[in-house]
């Protein structure tokens, strides 16, 4: 039931309305609202009950295993949430003088340092508000670099076919044409021959994820970097998969010039049902001066200050009104500080261990790996193409069956390269027992395929709704409630 359907005219959560002595205003009446907006008229208890009960219809990390490839759904420490919710952080207008927000600035400054250490880059701007905005910043910086050098003919960004959709979309927003480059179907590595074919004096840069979205490490990364640099292009690193390599290898050392991180993945800030995230952008010395502003600096006297275009005249500019998703950054700072260098390294070690263990177990259980010859990174792909052919079931069916067993579905049908695929990322915070349970669930589902494929196609049956008609939604476009 929608909250509007609970609404009764004249009802209100009385304790929340300001007390008015009179309701006169000194505003020209032609500027005033004549209609009552469609906000619900409900009591405080009704509101609490409505949203509490709605929340119970969600899966979440706090309630379910969530092996959602490319999303790094690891445990979100409650401590980070609690500490960042301190009034000292919350009751701060962004425009108070730096002197009065040294605490916040210190967190941000130290986070910049941590990011440099983890990535091997030389400078960081924290303002991008999600991965995609980090990408935007990075590609815009590449553009600024070429523009400053007068290298105007570079109008192409190369993106592997396996890339996340934000990569080509970002390239477009930065005014580039997108050139796709193929991936080798046996190894998952980029096809170097194909790459050489697209590299040219038009190449502004290439966007890569490494480990790639196929869950394997791009072994020829140095060659790719050299080829691209030789062609005059720059390398962008999509940091969505950074959870695989902290303390193992650094994008800076791989030859990347600029990158973003998804702190809501690697640094465990909660996803919030679709954000807020944070997508800091880090660059090597070639690109540092183009970073978006503001960034935090520490003065000789130990004071933290925010600096903008006056210090960064080459900056691509601002990307948010104030300082990005500050509260997310503080949570990420707390997470990184609690883990420390050793903990971050261990996180990547065990994320990788979990993925390889799960991959091996599923393989032993008869599932088909997309890249059986390769180590998994922190994630891996299975393809249900064989099962699809034999039993007529799809990756979607299996995903919905998992939901019925209380396990969130892995990422489906991404990357697009692998038919009927599931991209599985267990993360390091899940136990061996939980992984074994997942394998058992998959085996049980396979049994269902054999015994009763029709029933499997009816999943889910144990959730608040059964399978939803997405086509109908797009057709009727019923997007707001009305009486």
């Amino acid at each position: 039931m929608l909250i509007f359907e609970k609404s009764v005219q004249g009802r209100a959560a009385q304790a929340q309305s300001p007390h008015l002595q009179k309701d006169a205003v000194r505003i020209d009446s032609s500027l005033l609202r004549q209609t009552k907006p469609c906000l619900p008229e409900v009591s405080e208890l009704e509101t609490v009950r409505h949203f509490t009960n709605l929340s119970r219809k969600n899966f979440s990390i706090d309630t379910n295993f969530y092996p959602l490839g490319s999303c790094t759904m690891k445990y979100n420490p409650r401590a980070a949430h609690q500490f960042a919710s301190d009034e000292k952080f919350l009751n701060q207008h962004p425009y108070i003088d730096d002197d009065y927000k040294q605490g916040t600035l210190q967190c941000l400054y130290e986070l910049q340092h941590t990011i440099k250490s983890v990535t091997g880059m030389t400078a960081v701007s924290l303002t991008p508000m999600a991965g995609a905005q980090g990408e935007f910043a990075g590609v815009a910086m590449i553009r600024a670099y070429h523009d400053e050098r007068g290298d105007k003919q570079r109008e192409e960004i190369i993106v592997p076919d396996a890339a996340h959709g934000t990569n080509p979309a970002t390239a477009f927003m930065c005014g580039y044409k997108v050139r796709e480059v193929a991936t080798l179907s046996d190894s998952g590595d980029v096809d170097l021959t194909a790459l050489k074919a697209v590299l040219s004096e038009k190449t502004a840069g290439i966007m890569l994820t490494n480990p790639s979205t196929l869950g394997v490490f791009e072994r020829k990364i140095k060659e790719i970097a050299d080829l691209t640099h030789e062609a005059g292009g720059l390398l962008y690193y999509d940091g969505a998969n950074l959870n695989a390599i902290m303390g193992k290898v650094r994008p800076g050392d791989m030859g990347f010039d600029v990158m973003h991180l998804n702190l809501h993945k690697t640094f465990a800030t909660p996803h919030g049902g679709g954000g807020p995230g944070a997508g800091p952008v880090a660059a090597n010395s070639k690109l540092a001066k183009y970073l978006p502003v503001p960034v935090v600096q520490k003065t000789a006297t130990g004071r933290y200050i925010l600096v903008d275009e006056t210090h960064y005249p080459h900056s691509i500019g601002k990307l948010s009104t104030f300082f990005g998703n500050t509260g997310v950054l503080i949570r990420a700072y707390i997470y990184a500080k609690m883990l420390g260098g050793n903990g971050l390294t261990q996180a990547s070690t065990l994320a990788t261990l979990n993925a390889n263990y799960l991959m091996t177990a599923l393989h032993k259980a008869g599932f088909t790996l997309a890249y059986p010859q390769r180590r998994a990174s922190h994630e891996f792909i299975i393809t249900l193409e064989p099962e699809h052919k034999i039993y007529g079931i799809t990756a979607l069916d299996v995903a919905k069956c998992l939901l019925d067993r209380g396990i969130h579905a892995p990422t489906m049908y991404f990357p697009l390269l692998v038919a009927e695929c599931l991209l599985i990322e267990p993360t390091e915070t899940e136990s061996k027992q939980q992984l074994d349970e997942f394998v058992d669930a998959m085996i049980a589902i396979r049994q269902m395929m054999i015994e009763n494929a029709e029933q499997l196609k009816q999943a889910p049956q144990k959730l608040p709704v059964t399978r939803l008609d997405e086509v109908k939604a797009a057709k009727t476009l019923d997007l707001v409630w009305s009486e």
Partner: protein
Amino acid sequence: MSFTPHTPEDIALMLNSIGIDSVEQLFDEIPSAIRIEGLPDLADGINEMAMGREIKKISAGNKNLLNFIGAGAYQHHIPSAVWQLAGRGELLTAYTPYQAEASQGSLQIIFEFQTMIASLCGMDVANASMYDGASALAESILMAVRANKKTTSKKIVIADSIHPCYLNVMNSITRYQGIEIQCVETDRYNDVNTLKSAAHESFAAVVLPQPNFLGQLTRVDAITDWAHQHHALVIGLVNPVTLGLLKEPGSWGARGADIVCGEGQPLGVPLAGGGPYFGFMACKKQFIRQMPGRIVGKTTDTNGKTGYCLTLQAREQHIRRSKATSNICTNQGLLMTVATIYMSLLGPQGLKNVAIKSHQNTARLIELLNTVKQVHCVYADNFCHEMVIQVPSSAKSVLKKMADRGVAGGYDLATLGQAWADKLLVCSTEVHNENDLQQFITVLKTAIEDV
């Protein structure tokens, strides 16, 4: 402290099952030339107790002042229930609701949010949030250019003063797509005649802030009609709390604005040093396919039961890739949830009362300011809950002195240019009581004397 559950026995069993001897072998595909061994630059981890001590020490570097700054981020009362609900694990730690059946909570909340925002704006539809107000404006501009089929112009007229940072962000985001932006300075009522003389050629859209950056109220009807006569779309840039009181953009002029966007922070989101906030976007139904961001639609399940799911995904990057309406993916779901709970607790009357009380407090402050020598209220009427005052010395020095006495006295308008360096943008909302207003006056007086 990596929050991992692995015991040494677990690890041994898992390695054995994989068929390798050590965890190091897991990384043997990484070229050894670039392998590193850990992160020696970073200190070792600490436990939660130590972190608690540390963060207390750090946060002590933040001082909470009695706040009279607005300028794009507004302090309002936030009901305790809002964040206690939003902090529930099921809302806080869920992913984007791609798996609809396992996300009916988030999806219904988005549907309710879309309804509330669309109605507040007087629009047909809304999306599930953008990053923040400034980026929502940038995306609205890109959207308007795509949506306006009546002109090939990529020119945007900004009618009236908008936040300098919005201008900056707008520029950063739209510049690579050939967008040309013309800012027209108008009088404080934003009279349409000023625009008429400034904007000659054809243009794709007009951005109309209400209230404008200086807290002044725009004569929205005339400009809307004028823009429409010129086949331009009208983008309303609004503060959602003031929409409890002010005319909804959908009723501006004869046909109403076409796209409405703004900063959602006033709806239950704490100031929090600048974020996370959220942007919102609403539009007329005919433009929906040009809208960026996530949109939820109502549908039915296999039993005919109502349910909700993401829809029109073909606009988005994960389907349309380089042809998507935007690259936005993760947005600001939790803040959108917060706003939905906030709007439910306030209701139409409560939200209106917030707007009225904020306005009345600002009016009262002006009344009190009239008694302060050397201070001049630059705009003493036509305001909503923010206004400009002039001080006898630099705003910067006055603000500094005020802050030393615990009051954040306003926003230093020097960012608008030298002529503004003695002016402050001051905001009062319903959170202030008479004492607070009196304290503002007292501290301002002392500050002026002190400078």
